[in-house]
């Protein structure tokens, strides 16, 4: 179980502070909030050179949130800091979590693959840490493999696919051809897209697998062959409205737009992409966020940066209200009706109490602008329209304990 028997007292203290005006108290002891950041460092190549991830992808978002939290902390005598721990695939995740716990950290952001998230979660549970999954999109982490001490700020594949599907159906682009990569994450994304098609009334008229036969993303010879390969690959398909690609592995989707046999739009892993964030989002005050990020890191802000920012900002919010790093009190606050996060997405973000997934709109971007934001108009829900994205409470296989 999560530790922290004094959480009730702290909550009451927090409530007492809320009622009173908060003045900066010069000379009062500053409370330190140390946040762990655990990530797997492995090279990742993208088809587009401009989308190559920076070495601090994700971490930078958490660092920006720490800066934001510290601006607020000046008024509350709170100080936030990050400890960044980099792992290689050979490293022991549980040992790394233990090390962070030894250094007094109770709140931990992770950017790890699904299995490693579970190893971190189980090690964290033994030491009373609360984990924030900022990286893994896997639905199973919120469903059969959900954990009572893991909050998910990353959206799931099903949320991304539903966000895209709602828009395609709104556009009346109901006949899809689905092209799936040959790697495991591609197959999981395709599964989510199939579910969305069925859920919102689209029809997958044909599926094709794009085998990864190896090869580099960049070459001196250039895209001469690609220009011939893609039309041939997309020839002889039944009549369709949109080509949907599931290619998280960055093998082929980036080559599809403008090269299909029939002139059709592309969506999914290329073309119109559903995401938690894009550097082009300038709505709902996001311009300030993009500016702050660019000033601090001299590069555009990615979806992973946003997911990590969101986790560290959630910690900032709980610090203001709970005034403690206690993991249980922090989680109780997130699950309470008092919690609402402003994250430049046009509405408050709240937590699904049945699986600890953060509710969030899904942005649809062509990489240069935000084309639309889901949930789309007309997709209704009895509790929150954000719950039309991803697995809903009644479908959930998660048992938190």
């Amino acid at each position: 179980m999560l530790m922290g028997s004094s959480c009730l007292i702290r909550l009451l203290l927090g409530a007492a502070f809320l009622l009173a005006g908060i003045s900066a108290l010069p000379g009062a002891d500053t409370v330190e909030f140390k946040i762990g950041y655990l990530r797997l460092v492995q090279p990742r190549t993208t088809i587009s050179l401009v989308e190559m991830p920076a070495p601090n992808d994700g971490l930078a978002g958490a660092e920006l949130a720490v800066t934001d939290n510290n601006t607020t902390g000046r008024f509350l005598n709170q100080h936030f800091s990050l400890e960044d721990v980099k792992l290689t695939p050979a490293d022991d995740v549980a040992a790394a979590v233990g090390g962070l716990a030894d250094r007094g950290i109770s709140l931990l952001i992770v950017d790890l693959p699904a299995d490693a998230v579970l190893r971190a979660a189980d090690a964290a549970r033994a030491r009373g840490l609360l984990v924030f999954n900022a990286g893994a999109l896997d639905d199973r982490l919120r469903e059969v493999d959900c954990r009572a001490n893991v909050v998910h700020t990353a959206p799931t594949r099903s949320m991304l696919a539903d966000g895209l599907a709602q828009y395609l159906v709104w556009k009346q682009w109901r006949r899809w051809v689905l092209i799936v990569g040959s790697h495991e994450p591609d197959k999981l994304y395709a599964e989510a897209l199939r579910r969305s098609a069925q859920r919102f009334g689209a029809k997958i008229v044909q599926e094709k697998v794009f085998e990864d036969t190896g090869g580099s993303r960049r070459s001196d010879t250039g895209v001469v062959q690609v220009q011939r390969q893609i039309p041939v690959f997309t020839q002889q398909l039944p009549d369709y409205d949109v080509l949907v690609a599931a290619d998280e592995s960055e093998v082929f989707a980036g080559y599809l737009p403008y090269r299909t046999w029939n002139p059709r739009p592309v969506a999914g892993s290329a073309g119109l992409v559903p995401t938690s964030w894009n550097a082009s989002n300038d709505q709902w005050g996001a311009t300030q966020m993009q500016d702050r990020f660019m000033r601090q890191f001299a590069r555009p802000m990615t979806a992973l940066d946003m997911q990590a920012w969101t986790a560290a900002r959630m910690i900032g919010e709980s610090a203001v209200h709970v005034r403690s790093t206690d993991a249980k009190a922090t989680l109780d606050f997130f699950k309470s009706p008092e919690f609402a996060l402003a994250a430049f997405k046009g509405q408050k973000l709240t937590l699904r109490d049945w699986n600890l997934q953060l509710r969030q709109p899904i942005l649809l971007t062509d990489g240069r602008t935000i084309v639309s934001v889901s949930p789309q108009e007309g997709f209704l829900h009895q509790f929150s329209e954000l719950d039309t994205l991803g697995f809903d409470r009644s479908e959930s296989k998660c048992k938190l304990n």
Partner: protein
Amino acid sequence: MRPSRSLLGFVVIATLTDPACAFTAYVSNEKGNTITVLDTNTLQVIKTIKVGQRPRGIELTKDGKFILVAVGDDDTIQMIDPKSDDIVATLPSGPDPELFTQDPAGNILYVANENNNTVTIIDLEKRVPIGEVQVGVEPEGMGLSPDGKILVNTSETTNMAHFIDTQTRQIIANVLVDPRPRFAAFTSDGSQLWVSSEVGGTVSVIDPAKHEVIKKITFAIPGLRSEAVQPVGINITRDGKTGFVALGPANRVAVIDGATHEVKKYLLVGQRVWHMAFTPDEKYLLTTNGVSNDVSVIDVASLKVIKSIQVGQLPWGIAISRQ
């Protein structure tokens, strides 16, 4: 109406409130880069003035002679002569100004700079910056106590109302409110401060002497999910009896009882209602509706929406002059 009033000899009252006088409303159109000028008597558009990029916060100078409009993408506040439509000055507002307020004498302008966590203080006559105050992340709402002694700034990501002593320019208190506080308004007697939280979906009523939240106003509209309730603009009648809160994408203005702080009524207006302004006689309350490109006119006495007027592209702010 005009002759009968003057016949009755309401000279003093007439100069103060003059309901017969045609007031002029100025609406900033965020996307159109224009100001729409409306006659509040005929409820017709008089003309459109071209301004800088992304006009939002808008006020008139206290002498009524000039329009001040924050043009965020040009990093300045433009001073415009409404007679000639000329931009007579650009004020050193600091980067990305959005909302601002003036001291009661009209000599000093306080500007929220969203992009660098500061409030800039400007001498309006000399048109030079004379100071700045470091506040929370993304300062936005600006409210000045009626006596001009306390400036309140709300910071959207820090989620606080910062109380600033205008003499010492020091923060004297910070009051936590719900997420994304966007607007701060004092009652005319200075006894209450209302702060709207756009993402939190609430209005905090604060005792400005004790720096305490004394009431949190919540909004429940049948058939509408809670995420759509996003309070921004607040206007309170001079007698303090009625408050109006613009609820953003809920497309409604809430009418609040000033004594009990209970919601009395929801008025359906245009889409994505941002800000509001009373005519000086408080006969009408005009609202800017960002998505439907119009202004709704609320009759304050009957609490009815009586007209909508097409304005420019994405209307945002509004100010009304006596002229």
